[in-house]
């Protein structure tokens, strides 16, 4: 209970700090951070899967579902409130996750990764040819309201969306931290290590994987809806394999130990991408590749492993998996 209260208190403090930082930050940085949080949520879902030994190369499916759910609700039903649109994004992720999880939860390794990738490419192909959903051009969205409040001007709108995205992010991050520290969270780490033993202790590895898959789908749905509101536009590229690859990139960059590291990595990556694409417009993907290579070579546990490594490395003690940060 003390751990849970500590996590909730930390989330509250994090939200207050973000709100103040966003108020002082320039508009472009607020926009970058909003988008980073949206993508960080998707990566957090992949982290939930990674803790159980699985990597999805198709989270674009749920990211896209969340974005289109929000977009269609706005265009077809004139729903304009961000909270409702994000809730619909989460619902789309949940429904799709519940439908797909039983089919994929038995697969492991490259088979699981490939099947998720295949699903995302099917969605991508269908959306490209569905002209009622905008085809390859996609859909444009107008600025949302926030619990009835309509910001005046783009700067206020950007800050309001940032505040809302920060709120959603800290809530999701806190819930994930609590889940990761729970019995079921520990079960995921165990499944990653030794499925046979876990089954012999009376737990179903398939169920553990299924739960993680649904969590990842919901987070991706939320991330997709937030991205759609942030960009004001959605198109089939949300489901493209390169988009899914970017989320995996983020998850590897952050590692599976720390929840905070996921969002630090997301902001870092968005900044690297923004500056690289401005100053090296044709080679920024190469710069990102080198960045990832260095992380894998010198920090295989990701950014999240940096703190426990620094803390324990000097003593020559190996950090156990999933130690809370």
């Amino acid at each position: 209970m003390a751990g849970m209260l500590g996590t909730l208190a930390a989330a509250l403090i994090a939200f207050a700090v973000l709100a103040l930082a966003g108020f002082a930050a320039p508009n472009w940085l607020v926009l970058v951070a909003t988008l980073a949080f949206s993508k960080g949520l998707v990566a957090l879902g992949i982290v939930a899967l990674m803790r159980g030994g699985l990597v999805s190369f198709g989270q674009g499916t749920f990211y896209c579902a969340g974005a289109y759910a929000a977009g269609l609700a706005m265009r077809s039903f004139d729903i304009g409130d961000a909270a409702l649109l994000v809730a619909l994004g989460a619902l789309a992720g949940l429904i799709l996750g519940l439908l797909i999880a039983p089919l994929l939860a038995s697969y492991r390794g490259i088979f699981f990764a490939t099947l998720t990738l295949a699903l995302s490419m099917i969605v991508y192909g269908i959306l490209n040819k569905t002209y009622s959903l905008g085809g390859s051009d996609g859909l444009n969205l107008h600025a949302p309201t926030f619990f009835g409040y309509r910001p005046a001007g783009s700067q206020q709108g950007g800050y309001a969306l940032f505040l809302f995205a920060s709120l959603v992010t800290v809530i999701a991050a806190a819930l994930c931290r609590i889940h990761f520290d729970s019995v079921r969270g520990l079960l995921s780490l165990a499944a990653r290590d030794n499925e046979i033993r876990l089954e012999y202790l009376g737990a179903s590895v398939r169920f553990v994987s299924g739960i993680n898959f649904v969590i990842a789908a919901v987070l991706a749905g939320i991330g997709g809806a937030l991205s759609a509101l942030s960009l004001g536009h959605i198109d089939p590229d949300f489901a493209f394999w390169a988009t899914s690859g970017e989320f995996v990139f983020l998850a590897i960059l952050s590692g599976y130990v720390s929840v905070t590291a996921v969002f630090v990595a997301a902001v870092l990556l968005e900044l690297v991408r923004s500056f690289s694409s401005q100053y090296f417009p044709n080679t920024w993907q190469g710069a990102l590749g080198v960045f990832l290579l260095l992380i894998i070579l010198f920090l295989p546990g990701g950014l999240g492993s940096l703190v426990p490594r620094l803390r324990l490395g000097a003593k020559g003690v190996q950090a156990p998996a999933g130690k809370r940060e």
Partner: protein
Amino acid sequence: MTALLETVGLQKAFGAVVAAGDISVTVRRGQRLGLIGNNGAGKTTFVNIVTGHLKPDAGRVLLDGRDITGLAPRQVRRNGVSRSFQIPQLFGSLTLEQNLLMALAILRKEGISSWRSARSDAHMAELDELLDRFRLRSYREQTIAVLPGGVRKLIDVAMAVTHQPKLLLLDEPTSGVAVEEKFPLMDVIMQAIGGSQSTVLFVEHDMEIVGRYADRVLAFYAGRIIADGDPAEVLSNEEVQRYVTGTAA
């Protein structure tokens, strides 16, 4: 004593190799049963069938009169049958504490929680008791990957005895352990499970250990049981001496 485990006509073949040929055994509650036999004799196949890892080609496994044949290992565990492994099956990247907490948390009546920490007061009290019972306290915070083989064997058994299984199967609990450590290890294991009401089946190659810790012995050869009785009787059996212990004149 009443029958806890009954296997009826168990058969299992891997291609042309018969690993279990009509194995019928009745194990009474509270027995300490040693399973002996050469490599490939069918001992581990028997354990694997009883614990749900293998489905028999024919035959039935009854626990307390209930048919558990072909159930998945987790269902068999939930029916009260637990096991340890010849090569300890642990969660290598986790600490000893996390490994034992996992074993304690999974079968609790309130179910597996998605928000309650594994380090609840109830779990920690049981963990302390388990650490003392198996003399593992000094390794509590250490990652499994860095622990010596004998300690891993103990942890493997400690995880298997949580939640008081009715039937405990130990697959070669002393294999890979130095000769001088075998008896101390078995002493710790038998003392640790001595207080429980578990019926114990253990696979073993060391006849001295079988003689000391079993009150009944099953000798396997080529997928069949060639002798069944008290240790002295079985170990002096001519067929056992010829095919299993290699002590026949």
